[in-house]
């Protein structure tokens, strides 16, 4: 490129006239940090108290069938898995912007892979296990109930899970497609960066 110097001058003629206020940036960092902390603490508290509640119910009701205990156990397990996933995501998002770019790219790819895995398998598995847990719970608590009440409850619960399943599938299909595109671009970028 013979006119590289001209290009450089042309390129550098573009100036940023915006005013950068350090206090504004500092405020944004604080707000972001506080928001993340608050969401995670509140979610952990909510999950934690639900878990405690499940344990208390299990201890309180000693004369129920195995269906009841299995359903509560399954719910507790799902809550625990959700909490582990949530805190795992927090530690992964702490990667520093000063890292080696190849390593940084690899970490971003790992995040996308986890996101894809969660969308493709995590959400359906979560919904199925939740459904199973509800069915086990209903099988126990509806013992001896009126047939009409039985039918209505099952129709409502199954309807809810069918709706959630369709909705989750619709959302995940859209996200999976855009995730795939981003993943391909980042893989290409990484290969390009590492190979001369």
């Amino acid at each position, binding site marked *: *490129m013979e006119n590289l110097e001209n290009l450089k001058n*042309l390129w550098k003629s573009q100036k940023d006239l915006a005013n950068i206020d350090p206090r504004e*940036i500092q405020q944004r960092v604080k707000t972001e940090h506080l928001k993340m902390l608050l969401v995670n603490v509140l979610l952990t508290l909510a999950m934690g108290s639900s878990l405690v509640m499940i344990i208390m119910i299990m201890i309180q009701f000693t004369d129920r069938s195995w269906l009841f205990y299995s359903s509560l156990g399954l719910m507790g397990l799902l809550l625990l898995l959700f909490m582990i996933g949530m805190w795992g995501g927090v530690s992964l998002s702490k990667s520093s912007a000063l890292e080696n*770019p190849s390593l940084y790219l690899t970490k971003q790819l790992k995040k996308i892979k986890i996101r894809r895995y969660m969308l493709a398998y995590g959400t359906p598995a979560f919904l199925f296990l939740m459904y199973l847990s509800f069915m086990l719970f209903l099988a126990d608590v509806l013992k001896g109930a009126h047939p009409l009440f039985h039918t209505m409850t099952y129709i409502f619960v199954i309807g809810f899970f069918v709706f959630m399943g369709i909705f989750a599938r619709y959302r995940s299909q859209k996200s999976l497609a855009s995730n795939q595109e*981003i993943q391909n671009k*980042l893989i290409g970028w990484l290969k390009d960066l590492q190979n*001369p």
Partner: protein
Amino acid sequence: MNKKETLFHKITKESQDSIFRICLSFVGRSEDLNDLKQDIYLQIWKSMDQFRGESTWKTYIFRIAYNTAIKYKSRQKPSTPLPENYINKAEEPFQTQGEKSLELDLLHKCIQKLAEGDRLLVSFMLEDLTYKEIADVLQLEVNHVGVKINRVKRKLAKLIESENGKS
């Protein structure tokens, strides 16, 4: 202003235009420009305490910009181009007029046709970073960077040639 704010003010003042142009090369003239710019400043602020003086502030800033662009790409939604009149307003960041503006338009068009990594590499080259500095930013061997720069220069020249041929 405290010590950190003063330092932030100093280093961003020195690199503000470069950061702006790196963002321009990566997202083009789209509404993502300000988002990416803000993200870079945010990352600079967060990473300032980790500066150990192993390299210069300049390479630190460029590496942060590079990595922030990667992160930005990994969660990018479809971008919206800026309104056409936005780039022609004298008070807006793009201080270009007439012929110069057309040349810049062409350059932007060509840069946007490159792959993401190459766009950033081109902006580093146009910012006059030495091979050693780029190698420091990307944590690669200097020879490796040399090969890359030559390749991307050829790609850009070809694109400019073909765009010039069209007009």
